[in-house]
């Protein structure tokens, strides 16, 4: 039977992984790509460079806590920052639907400019394409970014120095972005005051890297949520993970909507959350640093790397039961970012 692309191929979950491995990596095949980290790590004439790209198709383009432009800056900046790199330069390409209001475009571009300024990055190149009405939905944005990577942070992307006993940290409440988008879509006629957590985290991450040299791994928990990051982290490894569900912070209103709609917040997208694995001796110091930052106030240690059940993520549920954590399968919410 002829196979077609399904929405689930863009979910960031298992179908996406299979598509990437079986198609893109298979044909584009090279060491930098094959490591499949958030940013490609390149060495150009002795200098370590992190390079990443991302396309943004979020629906709706304006949502509580941000818009597609803010997302396009934050997403790419964060992909560089979690690799341990200092984001420097971004490109931005627009695919715009004929008839799209220029005022809306200006608002998006203004947001991008101010986010880039806050993050300390410059948008230095770009491209514009316009397609017939109905051939794309309002506006799609692609941003690519490069950043400088210090040699001592080179292993953060791969997490190769992780060992049992390391702590797993997250910089606040989860599932805000996904549920903000869902409420904003208004299909469900739910009114809520949920705000997306969309934010550039590079300055906060830099502070953390400054106070601790025990950062073993970082990943931004976007599509597929925290659960997907954790299951990817542990997949095929000789260590396991144990998460304590009661130390994962979730806003009450987010929890409520997740309950009504049957979403597991661990699988819902974030746009301003980084999962950090760090040596336990530095965990308190890291939490303290994070909590001083506006994007890290509700930071907590959510679990640790374990020697037992290697290759598997386990969670101690809020009632004290135990079960596994798996990556997202199928599509949870299309066009979340």
């Amino acid at each position, binding site marked *: *039977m002829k196979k*077609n*692309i*399904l929405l*689930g191929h863009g979910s960031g979950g*298992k*179908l996406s992984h*299979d598509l990437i491995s079986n198609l893109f990596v298979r044909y584009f095949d090279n060491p930098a790509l094959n490591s499949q980290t958030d940013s490609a790590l390149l060495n150009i004439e002795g200098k370590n460079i992190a390079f990443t790209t991302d396309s943004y198709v979020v629906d709706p383009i304006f949502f509580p806590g941000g818009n597609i432009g803010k997302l396009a800056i934050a997403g790419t900046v964060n992909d560089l920052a979690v690799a341990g790199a200092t984001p420097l330069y971004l490109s931005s390409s627009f695919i715009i639907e004929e008839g799209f209001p220029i005022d809306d475009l200006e608002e998006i571009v203004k947001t991008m400019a101010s986010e880039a300024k806050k993050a300390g990055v410059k948008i230095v190149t770009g491209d514009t394409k316009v397609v017939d009405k109905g051939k794309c939905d309002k506006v799609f944005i692609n941003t690519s970014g490069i950043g400088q990577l210090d040699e001592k942070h080179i292993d953060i992307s791969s997490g190769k120095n992780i060992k049992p006993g390391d702590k797993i940290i997250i910089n606040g409440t989860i599932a805000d972005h996904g549920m903000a988008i869902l409420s904003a879509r208004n*299909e*469900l006629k739910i009114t809520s005051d949920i705000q997306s957590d969309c934010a550039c985290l590079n300055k906060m991450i830099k502070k953390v890297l400054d106070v601790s040299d025990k950062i073993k791994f970082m990943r931004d928990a976007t599509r597929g949520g925290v659960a997907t990051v954790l299951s990817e982290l542990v997949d095929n490894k000789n260590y396991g993970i144990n998460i304590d569900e*009661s130390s994962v912070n979730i806003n*009450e209103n987010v*929890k*409520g909507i997740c*309950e009504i709609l*049957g979403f*597991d917040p661990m699988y819902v997208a974030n746009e301003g959350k980084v999962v950090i694995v760090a040596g336990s001796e530095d965990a308190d110091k890291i939490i303290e640093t994070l909590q001083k930052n506006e994007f890290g106030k509700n930071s907590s240690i959510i679990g640790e790397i374990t020697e037992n*059940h290697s290759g*598997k993520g386990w*969670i*101690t*549920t*809020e*009632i*004290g*039961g*135990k*079960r*596994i954590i*798996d990556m997202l*399968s*199928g599509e949870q919410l299309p066009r979340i970012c």
Partner: protein
Amino acid sequence: MKYIDEYRDKNIVRKIVEDIKRISKKEVSFMEVCGGHTMSVQKFGIPSLLPENIKLLSGPGCPVCVSSRSYIDQAIAYSRLNDVIITTYGDLIRVPGSTSSLDIEKGKDADIRIVYSVLDALNIAKENPDKKIIFLGIGFETTAPGSAVGIINAAQQGLNNFFLYSSHKVMPPAMKALVDEGVKIDGYIAPGHVSTITGSGIYADIPEKFGLACVISGFEPVDILKSIYLLVKQVESNNPKVEIAYKRAVRPEGNIKALAMMNEVFEPRNDWWRGLGILQNSGLKPKEKYRNFDAEKMFDVEVEPTKEDKGCICGEILKGLKTPKDCKLFNKACTPEDPVGPCMVSNEGACHAYYKYNRD
């Protein structure tokens, strides 16, 4: 979260688990017959808290799982008709038919839309007067009143482009059939949502005729553990009866208004259940007077011959005779991305719940 946190309180949970351990002496198996329970049990890791002599089994409580593959095949055939919009709950989208799925058809040309309620489907019908809107009505007594409301509203509003393709089923015949087939269980964790509509009377035969314990349960961990405690107590004291451990939602008489609407629109028919075969009066179809809203009456489609997958033991799992881990396809040929049987697709399916939360 108020009204939820109380039912997930670690200390209350610990207390009930201790109570269960204190009174539970016999080896017992309890079956839940509601997909919501299956999911909660796995999501909260409830089996890991129970003593080894208490086994939980998942029964035929997921509507998507018990429906026949030919239902999907026929829905796919409808979706290929000109001017038809299929409206469906999200669960059905990825269920494999014999050679395709609604998801695959959606990726081609079919207009298939996920809705959260039959009222969304009615709105689509109003907004698209030149199209025919077929709503895939699936579920037990919980969702059947919703479909009934759809037809009643369509009739009142004179909407002649709204149609129901019913796969609605009722729970009691399946619960009885399982016992008749000799499935070894000691009691039922009876479905909370179904009972909200039907009340507790429909289970009277379970203790009276079959001597099995029966407790209607809510969906939070404290609800489920409390129900298990009551079941154990009934078994240990040899005093089977129907108890409601979900009194904040279930009344003995049920939801009279919803039942009236269901009875207004539907009549029983014999229906096929995966694993159980054809059960007398276990399905619901629109009455003759509503035939104009019945997709089966109003559309003539050629449906491909149904092909069931070899090796899939969904049927045995739905009867509680096997668990997903007994299936040789589980986590190999059959995963949520590439499901063989419906129990792997539906969020409420036993295989899906085991895959997601209990794969080790």
